[in-house]
């Protein structure tokens, strides 16, 4: 399986492994399914059937000018998950993908077996990094990116061209940043209604850590794991991240 239509948009979807169903969601902007495909997904796929997809507008999924709000992205996931499995699924989300997973679980409690929230920001609009990012010049933007991305960008050539083009699209032609800023918080009272086992994994140096502490406090069956690193734990703490997720899903 590679390209499927959901919510009137074409999504790039891949599956790995056999076993209980798991869906993994990446973060916004520079993210794609590659951020899981080359990190935790192969290990999880030894014991699970893993579905990875590129969020709307990202990776090889179709570009979309609109629909980056949590509700629309949850409905994308609902459609994809329904086609993937009728069994309760486990969800693993990074950053905004974690918030989409969390909101999916709140809306569809019977559909979710276990939930892993990696570096999900709350409120989702609490993206000081994004707002600051938006006001930077193009070269400053490049300088503030993770090292690997930055190196690719400064080398110039094909990757830099693609990256600049995707940045231009998201900033100037899509509602992504407006949708992000309009996203409302999830109140503690709502978080308290979530009853699936939930693992929150956050970076010790990340500005999102307070969100993880709050979710772990408010969700009844949640635990918090703090790993040494920042927001991009797949890069900063790849091995312990994969180990934590695998142990939780297999436990």
């Amino acid at each position, binding site marked *: 399986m590679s390209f499927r239509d959901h919510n009137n948009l074409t999504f790039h979807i891949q599956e790995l492994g056999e076993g209980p169903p798991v869906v993994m969601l990446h973060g916004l902007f520079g993210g794609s*399914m*590659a951020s899981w495909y080359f990190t935790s997904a192969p290990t999880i796929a*030894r014991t699970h059937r893993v579905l990875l997809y590129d969020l709307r507008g990202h990776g090889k999924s179709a570009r979309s000018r609109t629909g980056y709000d949590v509700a629309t992205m949850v409905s994308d996931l609902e459609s994809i998950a329904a086609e993937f499995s009728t069994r309760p699924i486990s969800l693993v989300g990074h950053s905004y993908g974690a918030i989409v997973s969390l909101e999916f679980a709140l809306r569809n409690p019977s559909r979710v077996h276990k939930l892993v929230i990696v570096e999900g920001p709350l409120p989702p609009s609490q993206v000081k990094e994004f707002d600051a990012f938006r006001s930077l010049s193009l070269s400053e933007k490049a300088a503030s990116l993770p090292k690997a991305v930055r190196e690719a960008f400064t080398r110039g050539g094909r990757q830099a061209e693609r990256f600049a083009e995707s940045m231009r699209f998201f900033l100037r032609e899509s509602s992504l940043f407006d949708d992000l800023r309009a996203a409302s918080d999830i109140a503690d009272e709502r978080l308290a209604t979530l009853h699936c086992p939930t693992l929150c994994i956050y970076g010790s140096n990340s500005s999102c850590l307070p969100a993880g502490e709050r979710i772990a406090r408010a969700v009844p069956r949640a635990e918090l794991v703090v790993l040494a690193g920042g927001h991009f734990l797949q890069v900063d703490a790849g091995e312990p991240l994969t180990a934590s997720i695998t142990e939780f899903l297999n436990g």
Partner: protein
Amino acid sequence: MTTEVTTETVLARVSDLIRECIGEEWALDVPIGMDTSFANDLELESIEFVALAEKLKATYGRRVDFAGWLAGMELKEILNLRVGVLVEFILSCHSETTTT
């Protein structure tokens, strides 16, 4: 009936798959050999590497456990891969199946 599996045939097949992933306009200019780096020479984006992995799966089937191979690697190693390392891996999978 089987095609002979040699470094040359695997490299040719892998090169075709890479060209399919990165698109004609770039692929035509870049010579692809055993020493070609995915990141530095081909500037393969990570999502294109996913596409390549899927094409390898479709081409070589279960015999080449690409995902399992990647699971044993650090992200940095994956980004620094050369085409030759991938070709050698595919060859090693074939020799394992023929000797067992």
